[in-house]
């Protein structure tokens, strides 16, 4: 039976690698079962880092899995005539397999620091000043309230443009968003932009990104926010500069018209 069990353990690296290969390679049974389309400028760094760690851990996974199989196969008590190697360990080996992984892990740690800083620490600068947010995104059970500055170009005043769940952004432009929550924790997750940031009530935070492709994408809430968490879905609408301006002008006009109607009704 030792042979059978060794082969069962061999299945782990064989099938384990196969599943990932099927997922990474386009087409086939697992088509589209991999990192979703990346439409951001910074996303490539994250995806490359993901793949780098995947290859690195993949090698360790295959080597340990193969050793496990080989030892089970070779040292099966039923088949192995040799006496047990009576040893309590090896000082040299311990040092080698401590220092080697330590170096690799430290390398990964330092290697990724820039990408992290770019994403979360280096606030975009425009004309020597902090770039003002394009919009204020407020998470609320269970919707995204989005607020653009009105004609006075300041967010938080009466003429603000209010939109629910649809976030329009211009393509190829560095977008800064101010994010906050009105009630409980939410997480602002743009899978295609490789952005995720928790919205914490009581805290004013900023996220920034730059897109490179127009289209319609999902905004996902990624932090449990109550019974309707699953349906807190928004849409990210990436448009050309002109389309964005046109939409904005139109939406402001529409909002002014309807609010005047409301006032005159009173």
């Amino acid at each position, binding site marked *: 039976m030792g042979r059978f069990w060794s082969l069962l353990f061999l299945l782990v690296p064989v099938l384990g690698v196969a599943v990932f290969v099927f997922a990474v390679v386009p087409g086939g049974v697992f088509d589209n079962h991999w990192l979703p389309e990346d439409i951001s400028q910074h996303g490539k760094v994250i995806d490359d*880092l993901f793949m780098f760690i995947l290859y690195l851990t993949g090698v360790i996974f295959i080597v340990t899995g193969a050793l496990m199989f080989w030892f089970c196969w070779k040292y099966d008590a039923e088949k192995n005539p040799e006496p047990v190697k009576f040893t309590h360990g090896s000082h040299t080996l311990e040092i080698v397999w401590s220092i080697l992984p330590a170096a690799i892990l430290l390398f990964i740690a330092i290697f990724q620091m820039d990408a992290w800083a770019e994403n979360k620490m280096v606030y975009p600068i425009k004309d020597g000043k902090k770039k003002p947010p394009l919009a204020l995104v407020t998470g609320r059970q269970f919707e995204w309230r989005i607020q653009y500055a009105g004609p006075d170009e300041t967010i938080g005043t009466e003429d603000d443009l209010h939109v629910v769940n649809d976030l329009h952004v211009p393509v190829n432009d560095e977008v800064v968003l101010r994010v906050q929550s009105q009630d409980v924790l939410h997480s602002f997750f743009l899978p295609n932009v490789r952005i995720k940031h928790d919205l914490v009530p009581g805290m004013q935070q900023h996220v920034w990104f730059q897109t490179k492709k127009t289209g319609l994408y999902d905004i996902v809430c990624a932090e449990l926010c109550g019974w309707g968490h699953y349906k807190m879905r928004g849409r990210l609408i990436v448009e050309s500069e002109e389309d964005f301006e046109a939409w904005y002008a139109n939406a402001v006009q529409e909002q002014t018209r309807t609010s005047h109607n409301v006032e005159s009704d009173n």
Partner: protein
Amino acid sequence: MNTSSAVSQGHGHGDGMTVSHFISTYVFSKDHKMIGLQFLFTTLLWFIVGGLLALGIRWQLAYPWSDMPIIGGRLFSAEGGQISPEFYTTLFTMHATVMIFFVIIPILAGAFGNYLIPLMIGADDMAFPTLNMLSYWFMWPAFICIGISFLTPPYGAGGGWTSYPPLSAVRAAAPGSQMAQTWWLMGVTLVGISSMMGSVNYMTTIIQMRAPGLSMFRLPLTIWSMFITAVLQAFALPVLTAGGVMQILDRMLGTGFFVPEGLIVNNADMITGGGQPLLWQHLFWFYSHPAVYIMILPAMGMVSDILSCFARKPIFGYKPMVYSISGIAGLGFIVWGHHMFVSGMNPMLGMTFMVSTMMIALPSAVKVFNWLGTIWGGKIEFTTPMLFSLSFVSMFVIGGLSGIFMAATPVDIFIHDTYYIVAHFHYVLFCGTAMAVMGAIYFWFPKMFGRAMNETAGKWHFFLTFLFMNGTFYLMHILGAVGFPRRLADPYHYETFKHLLPMNRFITWCAIGMVVSQIIFAVNFFYSIFKGQKVGRNPWRCNSIEWFCPSPPVGHGNFDAQPIVYRGPYEYGSPEVDTDHYPQTQPPPDGVKSSEEVH
């Protein structure tokens, strides 16, 4: 050794079955073995509950909003047999709570810690038998609290097992944040108190009550890991207890430790405020990250012992193993922030936690290499406990490596709170710890009941569990790579995740297969208690001290002769003796001093 002899009166088996005798032997017993078995049986019962809750989650993810077969009509008559979205939140909350607080932690520390520590160090009981009994009976108020939580609409707490405020602290925030949440918090806090009592006992017992000759560096790794686990519990748990009490106060008295100003929840202004939701996350993870190691270290220890025994070869690198357990425990206290990379915590701090998190992978890697070194050059006997232990190593490699993805902060931005993390911790906790626990049950069952479990059934149980659990959890890595978020009742209305339904169906059927395979185990377990093959003291030809006493150990006091220890527990295949094992308690042949001097 003599501290506990005073309490052993009235525990012998000869003095007639009166009611009070029954109660003192089987209910309010102070005998560590009985307490260990009480923990074992209770946690295995909760294991069933937790598994069924998981099937509820899987059903919804495979067949969203469709009638649940058989039980749906009874459970959710108002929804026409469907799982409601609020009940879905309680399903995953209670699944995690039950599995972590009522199964994994108490089965490792409570069941195996209690049963094995005195036996493996050659003591007749724990240092504080009454405290030991209390640590079990403090679980019952916790069970009752969680039970009430289950009976309070919407039938369980719904804030996730992490119970993040304000969702959990503000009653208006969710249906599951009503009284169910308060009962949940009290239950979890009580479990913590029970564990603290246990940990004080374990530390004292291991330091004070070792048999003559049993130095710290002659302890089996099981005991080392239990010792370090007890230290972790003693230092980390008070923080969770404090946090739990603070959240209860927030809910009951409106203290606002975790609730900021200016909240508008369900269109109602919250009057209280002045708190910080992130404070809870820090307090919670300051305990719950070390708790991750509380949930894996004892498993690692037991696996080390089982691997060495069935490879018939000394453990490879005993001292490096001890140092890496200690290293994991030490580093384990300074990595909690990696749960909060995208939480809004200072990103600079995130970088610090990233480095410490990367470094904690090192001792885990050292342990894996040493396990491989242990089976290298041995004479491997593929018994059921050995198969489970080998699979622990194989699966722990997957769980350990996937952790590196999450530790890399930029990657974590994408995979945080997706199925990637779900895959990761199930590989560590289920495919790792639960497999080790299964192996340990098969391994120490003969000592507990004097009878062995059936090997053929055991191997079938292993084979099916191994296949189905990989079918269940491995593909979750792929789901995570697509960004599939956890805790969503219906992720398929997002364009990005629509096409993942077939894969989820496959996972669900594997999960059902996995649960069904456990029936083999349950039948084998109960059958073998009464009808299993009788065994002697040392059926596995193992070295450590617990095999020196009768199976099951005699009454209250364990040993029929005082164990005296001559060597470490891993002298398999020693050239000093003709047998392939060399028990710790066996005096050396004339002319040979001690095996310690040989290596």
